[in-house]
């Protein structure tokens, strides 16, 4: 067995750092409403850095084993650019949800997110031994949809009109990738 560093890619690496570092980054990202409207259906709220830090600490204390959370750093310049998380893990079925966000908008559309997602999938299938991974994406987030398709996710359906924004109903698109699909298309496979 060739031992690889699962947390290291060619453009980004996955890191977990102290709550105050994370809270500082998040408190800035929350203020970019475009980012928040692409990320979440909840109305964006501008939490203070202190509140964010307390909340992260509380989450760590409760440390749910169905949750994996990491931040994304660039290799070049070592910039903190986003986060990645697995949640709602069903260990009995090998199924989990993944979420990803790049809070630093200048890194959008350049392959950083795709590579971070590839690292996430390698971790999901090679270390956590999941059978499949699911995600939800908003129909107006075409950039994200292309990125997910690129790493192998396929559309599994649409929750019709799941959210209301700017006076219009939008679908939530669910995408999934199976272990065998990832194996066939695994970018990390040698040769």
């Amino acid at each position, binding site marked *: 067995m060739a031992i690889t560093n699962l947390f290291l890619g060619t453009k980004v690496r996955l890191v977990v750092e102290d709550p105050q570092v994370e809270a500082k980054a998040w408190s800035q990202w929350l203020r970019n409403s475009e980012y928040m409207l692409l990320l979440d259906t909840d109305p964006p709220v501008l939490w203070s850095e202190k509140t964010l830090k307390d909340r992260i600490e509380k989450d760590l204390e409760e440390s749910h084993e169905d949750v994996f959370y990491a931040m994304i750093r660039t290799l070049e310049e070592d910039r903190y650019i986003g986060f990645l998380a697995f949640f709602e893990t069903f260990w009995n*079925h090998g199924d989990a949800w993944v979420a990803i966000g790049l809070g630093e908008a200048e890194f959008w559309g350049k392959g950083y997110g795709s590579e971070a997602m590839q690292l996430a999938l390698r971790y999901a299938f090679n270390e956590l031994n999941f059978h499949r991974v699911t995600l939800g994406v908003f129909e107006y987030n075409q950039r994200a949809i292309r990125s997910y398709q690129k790493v192998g996710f396929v559309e599994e*359906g649409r929750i019709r009109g799941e959210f209301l924004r700017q006076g219009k109903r939008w679908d939530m698109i669910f995408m999934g990738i199976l272990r065998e699909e990832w194996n066939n298309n695994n970018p990390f496979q040698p040769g």
Partner: protein
Amino acid sequence: MDLKRSLFEEELICLAPIDPERDAEIEAKWTHDAEYLRLLKADIARPLSPAQVKKAYESIEKKVEEDKNLFYFTIRTRPDERLVGFAKLYAITWSHGTGMLQMGIGDAQDRKQGYGRQALSLLLRYAFDELNLYRLTALVPEYNRDALRFFEKAGFVIEVRRRQALNRDGRRWDLLHLGLLQEEWAQNGSLKIDEQGRQ
């Protein structure tokens, strides 16, 4: 505005609050039927004691009170108020008018008696006419064909098929996400009542 038409009562059943002392005994029995648990949800099937069920009831009531995004009812036969199941609306997101629905009839002998159908009709009316939700989602494992038919008859359609999301008895099954919009419910609501020969 018809105030006489009860939100909580149908011919055969009613929606009622939890009665922790008496219900826990009965629900604990249901949890010893793994088939019931597996038809209902993806969670690991595990039997519970009456005391554990009572604790679960407490946490449900706490959640109803604090989170404001859960409505939980027991289903009881009329007029003897015998507990036969539960019905809940959960994960309600008020800003978008969306929510999820789950219901179960605990004892196999109480299924196919019309209890579920009447409870669903009350629950949908509560969700759409009282909570003013825009849409509802229900999760159904592929192997629960009765539930699929049950929801489709009420107007739900399959919106998402999460391939192989379930691993049970040595094989993989899809998990279906079914959806119903308020406008679809309003359109076929009157039709359904006619079919059942009531106003």
